[in-house]
């Protein structure tokens, strides 16, 4: 039977739920594991809260096995403005990851300006829009953050390797 939009939506939701709980379970296990190596007063809250969350996860898994409603409904959810489209979201998150890598290499402002304009060109081929995006980011990042707020910037490994101090 072909998947409907609702099925896909619920399927994506269940996958996201499973992914979230895998992360949380690993985190809770770490918290409880290391709690044993701390002083009793320091370990009290981590043990109590970690134990409670672990019990919650077990209860959640139990409701899934028994078949109780997982809580993902088709009702109107004001936080969600559209059906989840995991491929589109993955694109954005992949770009965000690439942005982090670019910042590490070439520095904060060059990376953000370059990635924004590249993103727009890749998805629209609109050079004017890419220029607008780059200008906005540069204005906010340099004029507002660095000049007005005197926030520090990040130079990037490339400039350290070359031995050149970047302008921004």
């Amino acid at each position: 039977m072909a998947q409907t939009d609702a099925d896909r939506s619920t399927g994506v939701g269940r996958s996201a739920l499973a992914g979230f709980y895998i992360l949380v379970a690993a985190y809770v296990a770490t918290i409880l594991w290391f709690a044993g190596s701390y002083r009793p007063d320091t370990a009290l809250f981590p043990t109590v809260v970690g134990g409670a969350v672990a019990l919650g996860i077990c209860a959640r898994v139990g409701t899934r096995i028994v078949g109780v409603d997982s809580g993902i409904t088709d009702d109107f959810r004001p936080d969600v403005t559209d059906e989840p489209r995991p491929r589109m979201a993955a694109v954005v998150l992949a770009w965000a990851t690439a942005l982090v890598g670019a910042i590490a290499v070439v520095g904060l402002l060059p990376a953000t300006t370059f990635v924004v304009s590249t993103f727009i060109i890749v998805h629209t081929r609109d050079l004017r829009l890419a220029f607008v995006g780059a200008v906005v980011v540069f204005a906010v990042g340099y004029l507002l953050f660095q000049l007005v707020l005197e926030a520090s910037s990040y130079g990037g490994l490339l400039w350290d390797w070359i031995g050149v101090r970047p302008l921004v």
Partner: protein
Amino acid sequence: MTTAVFLVTGGFESELLLAVRSALGFVLSARGIALIVAGTLLGLVMGILPGLGGPVALSLLIPLTFDVHPLVAFTLMAATLGGVNFGGSVTAIVLNTPGTAPNAATLFDGHPMAKRGEATNAIATSAVASGIGALLGLVLFAAFLPFIAPVALSFWSPEYFWLAVVGLATIAAAARGSMLDDLIAGGVGVMLTFHGISTVTGGIRYTGGTQYLQGGVPLVPTLIGLFAVAGMAHIFTQETVATSAQTGGSRMSGALAVADRWRQTLRSGVVGWFVGVIPGVGGTVANFVAYLQAKRSASDPSKFGTGVVDGVIASEAANDAKDGGSLIPTLALGIPGSASTAVLLGAFLLHGLTPGPLLLTEGLEVIVVIVLALVASNLLTSVIGLVAADRLATVTRLPTVLVVPVVLAISTIGAFAVRGQFVDVVVAVLFGFVGYLMLVADISRVALIIGIVLGGIAEENFHRSLQISEGSYAIFVTRPGSIALIVVLLVVVSLPIYDAFRNRDVNADKSTEHDRD
């Protein structure tokens, strides 16, 4: 004892007057006015663009304002909040999509009005109703604060502990999806506060041997990741935010409609305010509750949903009044009343202000500035809405392919700017992944933030109470304030259980009727 003397001699009232005088001086200065205008415009844009809204706007503002005076920071943030509320209604009316969750009920009647060619009417109505609702909410806040203040000022470490626990328990009461999921998210938020050096016990925990985590998991990158990065991943599902804006109608008719229905406006404002006072619930629910109340009391309820102006008035007046209500638990008790105020609480911590009863002595001027900035911002949005009603909707024509990368880039710049650490940028993106998972799985990100904000307060005051009582746990159950809060906790915890039983009975009745058929 000192607190009792303070109250008896009317110390709070005189402190309040001094704070009002000082705050007025700041807000009415050139810098104050500039901050209010800038914040309002920013909030308007963030509210108009679906998927952004108050939490994203505030999480982007926090790195911009972390190093400035708290008065400057909170004037800007409060003005932004004021702008967001109205901005979201524009999108609801023109596009049938709420710009922010609390504007959801506005589209029931606002969009049908737009389809009839009365979008300008609807936006003007929204502008005026929002302004009146906000003013009413803030007047009620100011009126109730002197009654709440003495109670809050008598709180001590055991009460702070129970207050934090009550705040965490509201996650259960306010859950919209799975309560268990939201509680687990809150628990994860509490666990995130365990990293670093404990301020009470002095122990170092969960740092992995790194210096980075000795100060704990950084709050600003976490907020930016959960809301801004995750939000951008989610709104990249449509090419543009808008197609063509449908405008038409009369501004004056829209404004006069509110004057004609002043009783409904005030009633909805009061309803919104009271719902806003309930911690954790306010934001999304206030406009629905007021809308339903207006519909039930209308002479012809069947007309609601077809484009009656009363529906827009009820939703918008309540939506703005709720901010005044949610300030009570947020500022006076340290329990967030909505998603935006949860982020605002994080901002308080960053500026060294402890939200809750202590704020009434340490940060009274900041509280007054927030109230005044909200008033000014809401008046300004009413004027902007009336003057530029037909132009505001064109902001929604911004393509998401421009909005998404720009917001992502500014988010990473902001995440770095607070502490100048590259790892903060990595943390922001990592929490973006987590936030996206939570968003799609319908798990409350606000619950996680509540856990982060209140978890540290709960633990710190628990250990401090034990130090005061020299190890005796009786201190948690013998003080009148503590007993009152335990009762509140039991009520809060029993609400979802009561709801579950009631829903089971309703479903049982429905299936009995179905079998009968």
